[in-house]
């Protein structure tokens, strides 16, 4: 077997994953903290004010990274769901379930920061604009996944049902991303390009990228922590989990 595959496979066993998570949780949390602190410091205090929007544009450092994360986490959740359904890997069910509330949280932050930003720039908190609407719908999708998972008495059955929904819901992600092009709307189009030239000034860009990286690490941190708890809950009958609980006491 290919060594990468073998590593992945061994990680799939609950006790191994538990140890892996325990090892990496502090590091990811630390990275998130440091990167976030630097990025936010430069973004909020050092970057020049926008010539059009003034100081209110600084909300971008919260809004855009969480907007990216809200989409990214959904896609990731769907991938975990697909793996869970096809290969019946229990760990992926758990990762999926662990990712959902974090994604919902980022979606909520996007919506709230967007609304706060909308008031000074567009003069209204809410507008039935394409991107806002579809982001709201993304929040509903997250709620649907969470609600469906909780509606089943059995944890694993709930996870499988939620996985189907997560997969089916993936169609919404491109819609949210491209909505600014498909509809003529208030919300602005893409200004950060990975390939090609960004339309945003470098002194504004690099703190943004730092915060974005921090949000990724924060996600990893929260994901590992939640997954660890879920894993213990699901495996509470198994011997390794019992030993661990005894050892902790």
């Amino acid at each position, binding site marked *: 077997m290919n060594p990468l595959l073998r590593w992945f496979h061994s990680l799939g066993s609950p006790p191994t994953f538990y140890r892996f998570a325990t090892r990496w949780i502090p590091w990811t949390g630390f990275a998130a903290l440091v990167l976030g602190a630097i990025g936010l410091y430069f973004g909020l205090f050092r970057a020049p004010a926008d010539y059009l929007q003034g100081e209110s544009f600084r909300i971008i450092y919260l809004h855009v990274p969480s907007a990216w994360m809200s989409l990214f986490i959904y896609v990731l959740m769907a991938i975990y769901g697909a793996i869970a359904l096809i290969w019946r890997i229990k760990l992926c069910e758990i990762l999926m379930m662990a990712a959902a509330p974090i994604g919902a949280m980022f979606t909520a932050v996007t919506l709230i920061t967007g609304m706060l930003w909308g008031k000074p720039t567009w003069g209204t908190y809410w507008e039935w604009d394409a991107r806002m609407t579809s982001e709201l719908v993304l929040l*509903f999708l997250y*709620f649907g996944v969470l609600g469906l998972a909780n509606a089943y008495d059995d944890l694993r059955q709930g996870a499988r*049902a939620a996985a189907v929904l997560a997969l*089916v819901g993936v169609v*919404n992600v491109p819609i949210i991303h491209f909505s600014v092009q498909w509809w003529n709307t208030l919300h602005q189009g893409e200004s950060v390009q990975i390939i090609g030239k960004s339309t945003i000034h470098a002194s504004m860009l690099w703190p943004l990228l730092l915060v974005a990286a921090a949000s990724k690490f924060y996600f990893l941190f929260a994901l590992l922590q939640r997954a660890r708890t879920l894993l213990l809950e699901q495996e509470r009958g198994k011997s390794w989990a019992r030993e661990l609980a005894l050892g902790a006491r």
Partner: protein
Amino acid sequence: MSDFSATSSLLFRDLTLAWHRRSDVLQPLAFAVLVVLLFAITLGGDRARLSAMAAPIIWVTVLLANFLSFDQFFREDAADGTLDQWLSSAVHMSALCFGKALAHWLVYGLSLLLATPVLAMLLSLDVSLLPVLLVSIAMGTFGATQIGLVASALTARLRRGGILLALIVLPLFLPLLIFGSGAVDAVQAGLSARSALLLLAAQTTLLTTLAPLAAAASLRIGSDQPP
């Protein structure tokens, strides 16, 4: 071959049942007419305004009426033990799910499609918009039915599926609504509806291929609760 005969058998069964319950089956349709009628009455004064909003109102109404019909997808088969009977025999569930969706569309989708000109008339929609409205509604309801298939399969066994069904269906409807009513908007604005319709068609095709598989996988979840 046996899958095909099973699917067509289920199709005929569901159509027969729908015929026996024709009055219940027409309820979503009645609902659609009702909504439009009430809107026409309340907004009736200003005819130009009404006709400008006619297409989106019709699209929303049709999707909502379709949503109301989803309750019927698996509820009865789950309650009277038929679903368990299928799961405990060697039938090909995704073929059956395809048959169920087809039957459902022929009953509910088609009747809504046929009612669309009436709805358009009630809201004094510009007649030139009718063709694109009909085409988009035909595709849209077919796609919506597939969404309903999956959502109903996911909630068929749940004691408390009600609000979940709404929560699941609504986000998935949105893309259909965007491109569907977008197509009509485009024509209304003098543009070509081609790209919107193509995107709608792509979505519907994708849904039609994937939904029966997803539904089949979902129906087994929760079978430990007898009806």
